[in-house]
């Protein structure tokens, strides 16, 4: 039975297997880049070509094949030209399409290269349908890499695990098939006598399947471990290499392809300049979303901003205050998205900048923002300052003490921010206050002098912030000029001394440090200003690269709340506008009407569930479910092969006899009587009997009796085995 199944599975023709693997790739590429029609047409052409070729080979099987008239060099030249033509044509086609839609070169590059790799694999298959070529393996993996990076797969654990498992299956099947065929063709002629013992044809496929199953299980485990460990590694690595990365991306167009971070003074300017029109965020909201925070920095030192957590590489006292914390979902999302994006999101309550222990929660009205990231630009999550909760495709979030979602959100799906009008009230402990008041010693005196002249006699944080903001707004000029400070002089010091034209980073950084000199805790924020509405859909808002911005958040001790400070000339802080209607309508963000409407119809709920099933989910379920039967089969076969007496090739009587012999051997081993391999049973029996006599003085009568009876038993055993009978059991 097993043999028949194995034969039927493994007798599938190689061209069909290659075709199936390429079909999977085709679906992956087409769904990722939305090129179903052209890609499937090319695939269909390749299939037709392969079928036609197979038919012509069958018809002309008896005819003498004409030798190729083209010399070998000519064949190579022709192949080279075909490859170049495929690459050139595909790149031209894809670039002409993608450049119209996006100016992100990384995305355009992924798109073009993925198509090139797929078409090359298709061409290889068309050229060698029966045996394939080893180049199909790297081409297939490149397709998967590029489709994944372009957002074809969710970056969630489930999505990634599915891609990994699919890669395992496809790669191992392809590798086995290509290499086996290649070996048999190139000298490795199949041994004629190999088929003689075809009674074990099931064993090879069985071991291969079990190995694949094992690899898949380990892959799942590795993906899980990576998912847990990766955020920490990413954080550590970014902390360690931040300086060098920024040095690399300095004056480099790569900066514009990713989301703005802004740790170095000037990096946001570069971001603004490179691809200014490229869309960074799409937000669905009833009103202009305004400033969305992406990164928060705490400490400044020599033209560079750092997160306090990034510098906490030792176990100092502050590590507990600045360490990120993880969040579990509080339940399913309750907001209806602008379109169906598959799986349901989950809601995570953000506690307003702390774990929630020292935060009071006023009853609040909520407005929602549905934010769509560009996955290719990075994993940064952008939220308004007073976000109370986030609904995202995630199982667990890692959130910083400054209210920034560091990781865990699947940015290939939209996420929803529930925004309150005000931040919750919180108390700031001494440790955090110390961080938010940190000023570099080198420039502290100069900053104090300037600030004192501005904020003289002013009491509250808000007024001080207002004064400093006005100081910059009135007396400075905004521009994207690059100004270099003299050697050894901090750029901020140079900026304040010379009042040169500067951009938002200088104004925000100077404001942060100046407020700190007068005792106002502050932090430096980078993100995007989302205020461009779509011409046709007034709920759709855009942020482009040119909308990257840096601003300040200051803590008001009087109210116990953070507030935004905008000191860049010509700018005014914007956030969601609140009126009575919006507050009344939204409640806690749960669109109860829609919810009730949905619940009235089981049919619509079922349809929704069906639509929410994603390919990766179902694939993952299949992989998970398939592993159990596989292991059952393994256990069954191992049992029948090695353990079950009747099914093995050893006779039952032989097996029983050997067991009995082993039992007696073990018993005699206690008296240092070990049967040697060159000793017959009769010789050993004699030795045992001799020992029983010789140790008469040292052994008890019972022991001697046992030895004698064992010696007798060995002789009986030998006699019985000689006659093919089952020997008696030693009493």
């Amino acid at each position, binding site marked *: 039975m097993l043999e028949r199944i194995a034969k039927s599975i493994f007798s599938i023709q190689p061209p069909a297997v290659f075709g199936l693997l390429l079909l999977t790739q085709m679906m992956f590429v087409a769904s990722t880049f939305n090129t179903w029609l052209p890609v499937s047409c090319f695939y269909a052409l390749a299939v037709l070509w392969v079928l036609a070729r197979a038919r012509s080979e069958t018809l002309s099987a008896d005819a003498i094949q004409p030798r190729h008239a083209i010399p070998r060099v000519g064949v190579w030249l022709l192949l080279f030209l075909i490859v170049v033509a495929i690459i050139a044509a595909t790149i031209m086609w894809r670039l002409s399409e993608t450049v119209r839609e996006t100016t992100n070169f990384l995305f355009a590059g992924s798109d073009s290269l993925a198509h090139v790799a797929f078409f090359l694999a298709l061409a290889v298959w068309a050229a060698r349908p029966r045996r394939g070529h080893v180049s199909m393996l790297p081409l297939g993996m490149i397709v998967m890499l590029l489709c994944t990076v372009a957002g074809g797969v969710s970056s969630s654990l489930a999505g990634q695990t599915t891609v990994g498992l699919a890669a395992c299956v496809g*790669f191992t099947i392809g590798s086995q098939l290509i290499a086996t065929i290649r070996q048999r063709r190139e000298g490795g002629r199949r041994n004629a006598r190999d088929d003689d013992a075809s009674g074990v044809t099931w064993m090879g496929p069985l071991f291969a399947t079990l190995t694949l199953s094992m690899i898949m299980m380990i892959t799942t485990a590795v993906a899980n471990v990576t998912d847990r460990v990766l955020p920490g590694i990413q954080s550590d690595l970014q902390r360690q290499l931040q300086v060098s990365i920024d040095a690399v991306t300095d004056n480099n167009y790569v900066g514009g392809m990713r989301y703005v971070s802004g740790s170095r003074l000037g990096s946001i300017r570069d971001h603004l300049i490179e691809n200014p029109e490229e869309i960074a965020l799409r937000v669905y909201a009833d009103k202009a979303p305004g400033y969305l925070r992406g990164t928060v920095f705490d400490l400044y030192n020599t033209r560079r901003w750092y997160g306090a957590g990034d510098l906490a590489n030792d176990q100092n006292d502050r590590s507990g205050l600045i360490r990120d914390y993880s969040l579990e979902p509080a339940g399913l999302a309750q907001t209806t998205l602008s379109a169906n994006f598959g799986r349901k999101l989950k809601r995570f309550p953000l506690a307003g900048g702390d774990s929630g222990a020292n935060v009071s929660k006023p009853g609040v009205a909520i407005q929602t923002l549905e934010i769509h990231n560009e996955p290719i630009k990075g994993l940064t999550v952008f939220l308004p300052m007073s976000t109370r909760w986030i609904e995202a495709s995630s199982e667990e979030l890692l959130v910083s003490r400054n209210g920034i979602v560091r990781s865990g959100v699947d940015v290939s799906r939209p996420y929803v921010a529930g925004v309150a009008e005000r931040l919750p009230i919180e108390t700031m402990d001494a440790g955090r206050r110390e961080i938010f008041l940190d000023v570099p010693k080198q420039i502290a005196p100069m900053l104090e002098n300037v600030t004192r002249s501005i904020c003289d006699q002013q009491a509250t944080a808000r007024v001080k912030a207002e004064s400093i903001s006005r100081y910059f707004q009135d007396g400075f000029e905004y521009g994207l000029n690059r100004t270099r400070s003299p050697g050894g002089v901090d750029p901020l010091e140079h900026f304040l001394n010379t009042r040169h034209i500067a951009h938002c980073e200088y104004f925000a950084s100077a404001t942060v440090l100046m407020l700190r000199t007068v005792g106002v805790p502050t932090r430096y924020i980078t993100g995007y200003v989302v205020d461009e509405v779509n011409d046709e859909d007034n709920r759709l808002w855009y942020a482009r690269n040119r909308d990257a911005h840096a601003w300040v958040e200051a803590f008001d001790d009087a109210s116990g709340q953070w507030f935004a400070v905008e000191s860049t000339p010509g700018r005014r802080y914007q956030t969601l506008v609140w009126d009575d209607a919006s507050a009344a309508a939204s409640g806690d963000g749960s669109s109860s009407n829609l919810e009730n409407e949905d619940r009235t119809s089981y049919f619509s709920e079922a349809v929704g569930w069906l639509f929410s099933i994603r390919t990766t989910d179902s694939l993952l379920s299949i992989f998970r479910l398939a592993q159990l039967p596989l292991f059952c089969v393994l256990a069954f076969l191992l049992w029948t092969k090695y353990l079950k007496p009747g099914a093995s090739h050893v006779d039952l009587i032989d097996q029983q006899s050997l067991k009995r012999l082993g039992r007696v051997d073990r018993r005699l081993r206690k008296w240092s009587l070990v049967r040697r391999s060159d000793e017959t049973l009769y010789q050993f029996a004699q030795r045992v009997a001799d020992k029983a006599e010789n140790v008469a003085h040292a052994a008890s009568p019972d022991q001697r009796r046992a030895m004698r009876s064992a010696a007798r038993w060995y002789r009986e055993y030998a006699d019985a085995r000689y006659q093919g009978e089952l020997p008696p059991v030693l009493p």
Partner: protein
Amino acid sequence: MRHLVVTIGKVLLSPLRLLLSIRRSMTASSVTLLLIGIISLNIVWGYPWMGLFAASLTMLVAGWVISRVMRPNLALDFSLPNSVPVDQPLPVTIHLRNRSRLPAMDLMVAVINDKAGRRARPSQAIRSVDGRQSVSLIRPDGRRDVVVSLIGSRRGIHDLPAISVESMFPFHLFRSTRRLRAVTQIAITPRLMTGDDDPLAKALLDTLGGWSYRLLAGDALDYTGSREYQVGMPVRRWDFASWARLGRPIVREFQSPSIQSVSIIVDTGGLENDADALERLLSLAATAVNDLSRKQVRAALYVASEPVASYAPSRHPQSTTETEPMLIQLAAAKVVDRDTADKRIREVLDHVGQSPALLLSTRAALDSDQPIGANVTMIRIDAAQPKRVPATRGRKPAHA
């Protein structure tokens, strides 16, 4: 102390050895996985390649570990003839027995041929003429036979070349190779000389043919008696007188006692610097052995590199058709110094007595002054370069 140093050295070098071993065992698939794994390490910068990273890492690591675990543990046996002439294909059946409790899968079996040109070493005596062969599976304690074709390029008693068995399991991700040493030897016997080789060879063969003709034709046949003809009996001469007298066909039977045993003595003395002449000499000897065998003459062979004790015509009761032991003797022939050769040949000639003997040598005569007997025919092979000898002067025998 030395043991400690060696152990420390091994431990220190173990990472390097491991790396080299991994490098040797990598295939196109594993190289692909390695490259994809390296690219997918960009997950640390936020690229969503966690699944592909996990897949490539697992396939690499688990594939390598499984490949090591499933490394074939095979015992090797051969079925092959005792001897084979130089440059003649030799079919060898390799019996592979799996000694492991796990099946050996996706195997490639090949005879290891030395790579030529790496260093100045003598060419491999026995080489494989065909490529690798695939064996899909050998079950635990199971056995498979693989037939390979070998060819011996140098005369001598040689070990069979080692066999390499590669397992490509799992999925051809890695190859784990076992080199199995063959402890079997085979005699590569001298090539039989043919007249097509060169003019000198033709001349030598003519000489040899003349000797054997004279040997058989020149000796009188002794009449041993007459007997009644039976169907199938070989008839040399009818006894017509008796037939007429008795009315039944009667045949006369003869026997040639002098040619019951012929000794062939090969003088390998003084050929240290002339391997070609030695090979030519042995080729001629092999041809003589074959020729006598074909003519139903029983022969005993002595090669001067053997101790004299090994020559005992009485201890050679083999039938005339059994040429193989003599050919193996020729395969094992070595060069000895002239004096030893002279001494041994003299002793053997004493043993030979008056029975006919053929002495093959590169010398015109033995160094010692004592003449050889009239029953001994000596054929001399010129040690000089054979191609210089004009075809018309091909005959160079020296009859004693």
